[in-house]
């Protein structure tokens, strides 16, 4: 029974039919409190071996990417790197479920998802290297810029999906968020707009337990973050975020539901950030070693290796190929980031407006003169 039906029975007046949005029975929207798991369950046998091998390969390459970027940051070659080490299953699954016409809306911790989407691994890092805000072409890659202000990219995903639906293009937008982001107003406004507009959007919350240092218990009193979906009239789904095939299935189902006109879904993936928030953070001040050890034992690559070996899908050749690909990528990152990037200070004025204002032309001339004077001194 819907809420409105119920109200009718209790004699509370309603609104005119034209002004009443359909309201759904909340029961089917509620997430199952035990997260969806595939690895180590009979469900695994139904998966295509090719998909499982692909997930494994991407996990291994993704882990190496995270490690190398973290090392480069310690060496001062990147300004900062919020690693997704431990969260790779979410990162690669989010990219893999999207088609060419779909859009990804990543947060600052989702560089690996951007790379998995097909963006050049070095171009994806310009923001964190510090030489350019966004190194890739968002339109060509259908990947929005890495978003730093928490959850503010969520309404963008809604607007884009809404516009795509209006144009008749069956494109879906997937927004990536963290547990801390679910406290931001923009998260709630985005969910509400998505549901009201029936926009083809999927919201993926990677719940890694901490918003920098603040634990989930201080962030939310909800039974789960996925439960927040119900209040907006969309389904919430809870998944083991370190179980790559499970994340892939839950997201793929949500994407296809959105594509078919079924509206948005909120997916909460339970995972863990093995590294600190960034290189500037000290996670030992707020996390215990036993907790980290428990999650290391629930590592996405470890889980895949155990399950796929048992299934006979993972062989030494795939392990070797994946490791080789990972090492080649790491070597390319080291080589590229060892050299200082070419910088053009005059580009600071090039894209503030379509045409620089008269004031910006004056300021560009000033900087140009300063650069010329500097060059003369150095000469």
């Amino acid at each position, binding site marked *: 029974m819907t809420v409105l039906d119920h109200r009718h029975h209790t004699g509370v007046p309603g609104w005119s039919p034209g002004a009443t949005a359909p309201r759904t029975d909340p029961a089917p929207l509620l997430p199952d409190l035990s997260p969806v798991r595939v690895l180590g369950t009979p469900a695994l046998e139904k998966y295509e071996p090719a998909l499982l091998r692909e997930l494994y390969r991407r996990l291994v390459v993704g882990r190496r990417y995270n490690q190398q970027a973290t090392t480069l940051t310690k060496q001062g070659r990147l300004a900062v790197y919020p690693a997704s080490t431990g969260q790779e299953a979410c990162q690669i699954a989010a990219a893999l479920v999207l088609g060419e016409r779909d859009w990804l809306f990543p947060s600052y911790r989702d560089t690996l998802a951007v790379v998995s989407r097909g963006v050049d691994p070095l171009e994806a890092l310009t923001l964190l290297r510090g030489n*350019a*805000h*966004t190194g890739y*072409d*968002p*339109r*060509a890659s259908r990947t*929005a*810029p890495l978003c730093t*202000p928490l959850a*503010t990219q*969520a*309404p*963008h*995903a*809604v*607007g*884009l*999906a*809404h*516009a*795509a639906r*209006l*144009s008749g293009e069956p494109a879906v*937008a997937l927004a990536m968020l963290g547990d801390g982001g679910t406290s931001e*107003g*923009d998260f709630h*406004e*985005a969910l*509400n*707009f998505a549901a*009201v*507009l029936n926009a083809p959007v999927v919201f993926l919350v990677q719940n890694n337990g901490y918003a920098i240092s603040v634990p989930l218990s201080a962030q939310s009193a909800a039974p789960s973050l996925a439960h927040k979906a119900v209040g907006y009239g969309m389904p919430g789904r809870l998944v083991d975020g370190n179980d790559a095939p499970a994340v892939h299935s839950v997201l793929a189902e949500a994407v296809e539901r959105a594509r078919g006109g079924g509206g948005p879904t909120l997916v909460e993936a339970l995972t863990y950030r093995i590294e600190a928030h960034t290189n500037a953070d000290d996670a030992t001040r707020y996390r215990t070693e036993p907790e980290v050890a428990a999650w290391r034992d629930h590592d996405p690559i470890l889980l895949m290796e155990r399950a796929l070996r048992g299934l006979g899908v993972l062989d030494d050749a795939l392990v070797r190929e994946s490791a080789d690909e990972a090492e080649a990528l790491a070597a390319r990152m080291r080589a590229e980031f060892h050299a200082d990037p070419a910088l053009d200070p005059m*580009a600071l004025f*090039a*894209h*503030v*407006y*379509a045409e620089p*204002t*008269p*004031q910006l032309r004056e300021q560009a001339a000033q900087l140009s003169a300063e650069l010329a004077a500097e060059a003369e001194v150095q000469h």
Partner: protein
Amino acid sequence: MSTVVSSGARTASMAQALNSALRDAMREDPAVHVLGEDVGALGGVFRITDGLTAEFGPDRCLDTPLAEAGILGTAIGMAMYGLRPVVEMQFDAFAYPALEQLFSHVAKMRNRTAGRLPLPITVRIPYGGGIGGVEHHSDASEAYYTSTPGLHVVTPATVGDAYGLLRASIASDDPVVFLEPKRLYWGKDGFDPAAPVEPIGKAVLRRAGTSAVLITYGPSLPVCLEAAETAKAEGWDLAVLDLRTLVPFDDETVCRVVRSLGRAVVVHEATGFGGTGAEIAARVTERCFHHLAAPVLRVTGFDIPYPPPMLEHHHLPGVDRILDAVARLQWEDRA
């Protein structure tokens, strides 16, 4: 149903001219979408979107949930897809929940993406006081926008400019904060949508004069014109310059007029400290120092939260306060 038609010279209010501009832009370009609170059946609380849902349907003129950050954030996504959204914020102070989306994304997206993702969004904001509104309905909030690089800030003061500048703003590939002086909504004037207006970024001399210039914009233009009329009795022949666009700022026209007259007063109803007038006075002084016979003075609202309606006339710059400033322009050399 709207009674506004969009062609031929006629008499129209600023509200009707704005409505015509939206309608004509939507007729010409299917990418133009209007969204905001109450913009549908009601036609907006000021009726600026009157009849648009009836003509273009609820998808083109969308009544949104009541959440300004969500409205502007959704518009950003629509613009990323290739649409040309026009967002209505219901009142000046109600736009504040959307400031993060405006400052962190709308203003920066072109720059963040090296020009690959421009956001051609027009954010319409009824602003300023003088309509007897209770608190949070009368803020002159322009300085927040003018101090944010990446935004154009446009504010019409005439019926013709309301149409022409809104059309230009919607056509612009840059985001525009379009500030509508709400106390001028109902003032009527002769209006021909086909008549060309000066582009964004150009100031226009509304009244020529030989004594000094009043530099102003938006809601303060009629006050300045009235002050100039009154000043004749005191022997001053005041010019009145309507800026029309705060960003980009028309240094060229402003400096030309100031240099020719040597005396200037900047007038706006927003608070003075750190305000637009401070920037204008500084720019004029930096560029025209040797042509000035007196310091550039400012006449602004007081540095107070917007007053209750029964006291707002004490806050808003009026003719007397403007003429007092003119009297302080060190006329000794003319004595």
